[in-house]
């Protein structure tokens, strides 16, 4: 018999998509959050509206780890079509909660796990009149059963329901009826388990918010002054745009009129085109999309790069190639962003790793875009964008917008007096960044002709080989300038440690946990959290300071490692890639496993080379 662990639990709820389980799972998750316990949730859902299997994994972690837990302690087996597999997803000694309205079929019996039944069907048949609602309410029964089993009290549940459905007392009561029935059934039948207990931590989550990256990104964009948004629906980025639609009318009105334009475009090509048109006309403009949309936007992004037009592209990555796994997570569009569009291109990418940085980088992305007069990517993924994360609240840094080298009519007037000429693409400061005017500037020397074809420093059409080469070289100089402007990595160094771990984006949380576990078994590591491309000097120093570097990324081909190796081939040779690309949110266990394998291989290599030398 196990001793129940306190506040260390993962529950996986297996249901059918569209069965109303999202609402039940949300209540369960928020109840645990309300108890003050550090917790996270991962929604592994299908690209489907109704009928396909979906899993929702909640983790309570006293230690404060928010990555997906390696093992499932308890499974809510409410989906007959996946049940035969689901019983093997849980760990030995784990718990299966099933609907025992009908007897458990023999093929769903497994040794070494505990089966607990709750007659959810029977309960709702008794409590809920026959209607489509009845199927949904069935899910509330498992919420009640789990609440009893793990120690969530009904008051907490009621408080969550009031938070969620405050204005609809009928909904609160009908949900509560079924949750309570599940709770009481377990209580009255004396059902117990011994794997875990949830114990309230007073003020444990006080001041914390629950949000998703797509909310954080939308709010950050609004506070960054996003003025034109054009987008085309695509999972997993749609909710970012929908959050903008939700919050913009509330946050950005002047005398009842909108200080923004949000447009649902006819396709991603149009979305990118509108963003570039608006950026050219002087407004902070953005779109959000995922891989397939980015593929379509390539040509227009190349135009914005070459014609030097500020624009922001939020990319919420999903499983590729092609349609791939639209509702699963990946970091496999790094190179599609970095080298976006034909010709010699390189782009600035901001890489948030948590809710606060989703907000902050979204806000700052417009500064970067205007400073460098170029497309800027905010690289996210489904795990960050669509899963719920607990976080410190968003804070607005009060700083003026960086409009970059924007030239007003007054400045042009002054320049004229000083005998200085406005030349749109002339590198006056040696940093590769030219000066920019925007349409509507009434000065007689303000206007210029923007084009994606060859041009000279005065924005005139040119096929001259020297003009062309100078433009390409200047764009590269501009990119080099960006190195010292983009967010620096966050580095953790320990005395005498020669193994480094680099990660970025949604891999951060599981990597943090993995490093703790490695430390516990004697492998100490230093850490670099990469937060932007181009790579900064600090990354080089980190590579230099370590013998072995593990680079964690969520793709098959080690795309970020390739970017590092291109920059510093010799240092890049120290990299051992930790590659996770099954489409599911990363677990610490997988990182630990791959680092161990890598460490063994490295040791073997050291031994082999020593032998060769010997």
């Amino acid at each position, binding site marked *: 018999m196990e001793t129940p662990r306190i506040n260390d639990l993962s529950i996986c709820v297996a249901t059918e998509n569209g069965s109303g389980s999202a609402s039940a799972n949300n209540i369960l998750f928020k109840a645990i959050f309300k108890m003050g316990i550090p917790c996270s949730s991962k929604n592994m859902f299908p690209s489907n509206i109704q009928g396909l299997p979906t899993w929702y994994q909640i983790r309570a972690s006293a230690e404060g780890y928010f990555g997906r837990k390696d093992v499932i302690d308890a499974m809510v087996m409410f989906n007959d079509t996946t049940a035969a597999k689901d019983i093997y997803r849980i760990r030995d000694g784990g718990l299966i909660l099933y609907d025992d309205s009908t007897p458990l079929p023999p093929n769903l019996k497994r040794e070494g796990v505990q089966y607990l039944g709750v007659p959810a069907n029977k309960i709702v048949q008794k409590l809920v009149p026959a209607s489509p609602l009845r199927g949904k309410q069935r899910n509330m029964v498992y919420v009640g059963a789990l609440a009893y089993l793990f120690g969530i009290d009904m008051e907490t549940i009621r408080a969550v329901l009031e*938070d*969620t459905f405050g204005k609809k007392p009928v909904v609160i009561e009908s949900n509560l009826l079924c949750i309570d029935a599940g709770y009481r059934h377990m209580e009255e039948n004396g059902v117990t388990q011994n794997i875990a207990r949830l114990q309230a931590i007073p003020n444990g989550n006080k001041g*914390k*918010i*629950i949000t998703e990256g797509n*909310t954080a990104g939308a*709010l950050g964009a609004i*506070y*960054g*002054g996003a*003025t*034109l948004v*054009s987008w085309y629906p695509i999972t997993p980025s749609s909710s970012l745009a929908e959050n903008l639609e939700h*919050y913009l009318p509330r*946050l*950005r009105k*002047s*005398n009842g*009129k*909108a*200080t923004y*334009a949000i447009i649902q*475009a*006819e*396709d991603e*090509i*149009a979305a990118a*085109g*509108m*963003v*570039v*048109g*608006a*950026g*050219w*006309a*002087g*407004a*902070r*403009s953005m779109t959000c999309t995922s891989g397939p949309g980015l593929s379509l936007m390539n*040509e227009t992004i190349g135009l914005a790069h070459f*014609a030097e037009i500020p624009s922001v592209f939020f990319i919420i990555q999903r499983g590729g190639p092609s349609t791939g796994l639209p509702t699963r997570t990946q970091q496999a569009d790094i190179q599609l962003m970095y080298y976006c569009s034909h010709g010699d291109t390189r782009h600035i990418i901001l890489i948030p790793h948590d809710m606060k940085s989703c907000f902050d980088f979204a806000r700052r992305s417009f500064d970067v875009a205007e400073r460098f007069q170029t497309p800027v990517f905010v690289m996210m993924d489904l795990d960050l964008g669509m899963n719920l994360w607990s976080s410190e*609240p*968003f*804070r*607005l840094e009060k700083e003026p*917008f960086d409009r970059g080298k924007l030239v007003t009519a007054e400045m042009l007037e002054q320049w004229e007096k000083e005998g200085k000429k406005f030349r749109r693409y002339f590198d006056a400061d040696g940093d590769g960044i030219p000066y920019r005017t*925007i*349409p*509507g500037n009434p000065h*007689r020397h*303000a*206007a210029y*002709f*923007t*084009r*994606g*074809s060859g041009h000279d420093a005065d924005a*005139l*059409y040119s096929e001259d080989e020297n003009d062309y080469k100078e433009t390409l070289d200047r764009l590269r100089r501009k990119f080099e300038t960006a190195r010292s402007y983009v967010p620096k990595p966050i580095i953790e160094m320990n005395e005498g440690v020669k193994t480094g771990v680099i990660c970025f984006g949604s891999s951060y949380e599981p990597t943090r946990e993995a490093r703790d576990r490695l430390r516990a078994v004697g492998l100490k590591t230093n850490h670099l959290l990469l937060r932007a491309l181009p790579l900064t000097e600090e990354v080089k120093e980190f590579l230099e300071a370590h013998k072995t570097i593990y680079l964690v990324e969520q793709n098959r081909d080690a795309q970020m490692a390739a970017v590092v190796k291109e920059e510093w081939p010799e240092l890049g040779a120290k990299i051992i890639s930790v590659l996770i690309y099954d489409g599911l949110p990363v677990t610490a266990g997988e990182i630990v496993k791959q680092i161990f394998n890598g460490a063994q291989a490295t040791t073997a290599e050291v031994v082999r080379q020593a032998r060769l030398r010997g």
Partner: protein
Amino acid sequence: MGRRRLQQKSSGKPDYEDKGVAEKKVNRINLTEKDYEGTPSTLCRGCGHDAITASVIRAFFDSSVDPRKVVKLSGIGCSSKTPAYFLGQAFGFNAVHGRMSALATGANGVNRTLIPIGVSGDGDTAAIGLGNFCHMMRRNVNITYIVENNGVYGLTKGQFSATADKGSRMKGGKLNDMPAIDLAELAITFGATYVARSFSGDRKQLAPLIQGALAHKGSAILDVLSPCVTFNNHEGSTKSLKYIRENLDPIQDLDFIPYYENIEVDYKEGTDQEVTLHDGSRIVLHKLRSDYDPSNKMQALAAIHAAVAEGKFLTGLIYYDPSRPDFAEQMNLCETPLAELGQDLLQPPAELLDEINAELMK
């Protein structure tokens, strides 16, 4: 000026000989017609597009539009090069192939005080950018959108475009067996609110139509037949100069009266019709078909179909709907152009963020 133009009744026949006004005349804002020129054209000698450029210059000059308030947009192709050849003092944007509509939508959304003129070709508009074009009109984005329609891809040296007529032959004799997309018909169907067709060589008709489009608030589409003298001007082509001239079918003679000119016109009952545009300017239509009413959508579509069936090009103001608000208006935007808003209006107060934080704590 309006009076002068009223006296010069257009016959609807091409006046290819009209080489522009040489006199040093200034308009209402003290600019000469020369002030509306751009860099010299690099198109083929005799290209219809250059004649359209001359009409554009004339229209802007006659309407006394401040070039610094104009934005010129285009896609890719011979036609899309032309914005460099007029209004040198205006901002211009020669974008990527087929995407002018989208760019114009974005630019117009953030600064509706700018006066957008787009020049595009039949490849840009009717093929690669067709989807974006349709949706721009569906939104009724404010723009004067000129399609320089020659039925052929010029810059890639002579492939059929989607507006080439069925049965038309290429220079080498190849037959086009695909039906043409009629851009005026398409424009009416998809929600454009000012739809006209004209001919590059008929400045007397084209210039007032452009003036009208500039005065209109919404998607104004001008399908302008513009012969490609290099790749599509041969026997067997239905877009050759000769074929077009022989088959023009004008529905009206037109006069444009700018809002600032108070001219009384003697209307002939039944044959003259006046259309008032959004800025108060007027177009006087001298009907060549007594029964034609450009506000009647079904009649407009039927007339286009009838002309196509006869192998004719219906020209003039084909359709006009002043009632539909343009895109910027539909979006309920604040008075100041969005592009000119400062951080004080673009960044909400921190207190509202605290409010949202509190909501997210539940």
